[in-house]
């Protein structure tokens, strides 16, 4: 992927972000730093606030305190369309494509902010990254398989060459083999091409393998953070997934 694209990554920095849906905050005081060329991952059990953090960064969920900046420019609580214009590409976990639109139209919507002339050329480039999509440009996005749909969702975001990618569980509902290749080829590839990537994943081991740094969330707070090597060596890390202080049963499966 790095061969086809070169992305001008910009740093994303979130400091002390507290956010929620009106009642008690779902995430409290979370700070995350993503630099160009890095894959930073967020892992943790369901309900730990990973998706809410991403949503607060892109302006979907309101931040009650804390700041977010992209390339040094503050984007805290800007509406989603303005965050997108600031160079942040966001792939939500569900409803990630325009189902009634064709694949090509989905990509065109991804390139909505581009001058008209550039759109065709960018579509070509996205197709070079996701060759699987080339044969199905006229097909309705709602009729794609899970893996194709996710590629389209990522391709749609890629249209704008964003400096920052926020990916919310891109491998959910994908077969393990497709999931691994998506992470290794495409997600890592984005960072290799120069972008800053922040990814939420449930498949902790797989995402650790492609991350530069990982944050473990629990109960709306950062419980642990470190490099993959540090975390893999930590029994608490495994416990945070399978609980109960029986980490030794699974440590053998680390990679």
């Amino acid at each position, binding site marked *: 992927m790095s061969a086809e694209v070169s992305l001008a990554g910009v740093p994303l920095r979130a400091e002390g972000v507290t956010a929620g849906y009106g009642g008690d905050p779902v995430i409290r005081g979370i700070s995350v730093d993503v630099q160009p060329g890095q894959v930073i991952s967020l892992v943790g059990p369901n309900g730990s606030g990973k998706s809410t953090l991403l949503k607060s960064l*892109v302006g*979907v969920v309101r931040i009650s305190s804390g700041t977010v900046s992209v390339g040094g420019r503050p984007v805290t609580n800007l*509406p*989603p*369309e303005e965050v*997108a*214009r600031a160079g942040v590409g*966001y792939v*939500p976990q569900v*409803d*990630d*494509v*325009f*189902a*009634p*639109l064709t694949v090509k*139209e989905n990509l*065109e*919507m*991804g390139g*909505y*902010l581009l001058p*008209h002339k550039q759109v065709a050329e960018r579509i070509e480039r996205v197709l070079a990254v996701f060759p699987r999509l080339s044969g199905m440009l006229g097909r309705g996005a709602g009729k794609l398989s899970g893996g194709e749909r996710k590629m389209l969702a990522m391709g*749609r975001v890629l249209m*704008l060459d964003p400096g920052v990618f926020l990916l919310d569980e891109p491998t959910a509902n994908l077969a393990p083999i497709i999931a691994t290749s998506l992470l290794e080829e495409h997600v890592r590839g984005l960072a290799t091409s120069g972008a800053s990537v922040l990814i939420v994943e449930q498949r902790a081991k797989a995402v650790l393998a492609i991350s530069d740094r990982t944050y473990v969330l629990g109960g709306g707070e950062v419980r642990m953070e470190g490099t993959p090597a540090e975390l893999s060596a930590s029994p608490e890390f495994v416990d945070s997934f399978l609980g109960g202080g029986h980490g030794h049963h699974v440590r053998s499966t680390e990679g």
Partner: protein
Amino acid sequence: MSLFLASIGFGLVTASVLAIAAVGFTLQFGVTDVLNLAFGAVMIFSAFVAYLVNENGISVWIGLLIAMAAGSLLSVLLNTAVYTPFQRRGTSPITMVIVSLGMTLIIEFGVQALAGGTAVSYAMSNGPTYKAAGLTLTLVQVIIMVISVLVMLGVHGLLRYTKLGKAMRATAANRNLARNCGIRTGRVITLTWALTGALCGLAGTVFAMDAGSFDATATDIFLVLILAAVFLGGPGQPYGAMLGAVIIGVATEVSASLPFVQADYKYVFAFVALLVMLGVRPTGLLGERT
């Protein structure tokens, strides 16, 4: 037989007027998520604007253009001043329908208060009559049909080939995702109201031309036809609305020509079609199966 053919001719004219209105209505609902029952009231408001222009000795065709602008303006106003504030509060769809009924009364009877309760007509010539393949149509009727076909082609082109049209479809499909693409959906929605409002104004004026004479409550029944066409094709589906308009328009007029049906019951077909669709398949003929 000739009566039957003539009724098909009437049916095609009705379908032409209906198609413009139904496409406007369904686009409005699909993109903005408001089931705007005041659509009929805005139609008749626009028709009266054209009448006002016409009364001052200006051609009704100029009036038609001004009526489109007026419909557009009123629709945008309706959205910004009323519907959007309610939606921002998280008002339930059923309450939105009640609000739109309230707006119907305000607009429709506001027009009646200003225009009086009597029926009026445009000062216009219906032009020469053409006969072809058993159909008899006046020039104005032919023009209405041509306008309708052009509008349908225009809507098709807009939705398929223009950036705005695609953004409208994207906003209808998934508003949040559209915003994540950098689309300023607030503007898209305002433009949708402007555009569908213009269609509404156009529909209102050609409806009034076709009807001959009209008063402030003339679109009450026509709204039933619009709803029938919209639900037949599936709410929010522009192509469905076109199909629904043709079916409802032609079926309405043809049923009126049948010997055992009284002319005044021609609406019953549309009514039954609407109820059946609501009861059996609310997503419409072209909609997704649930």
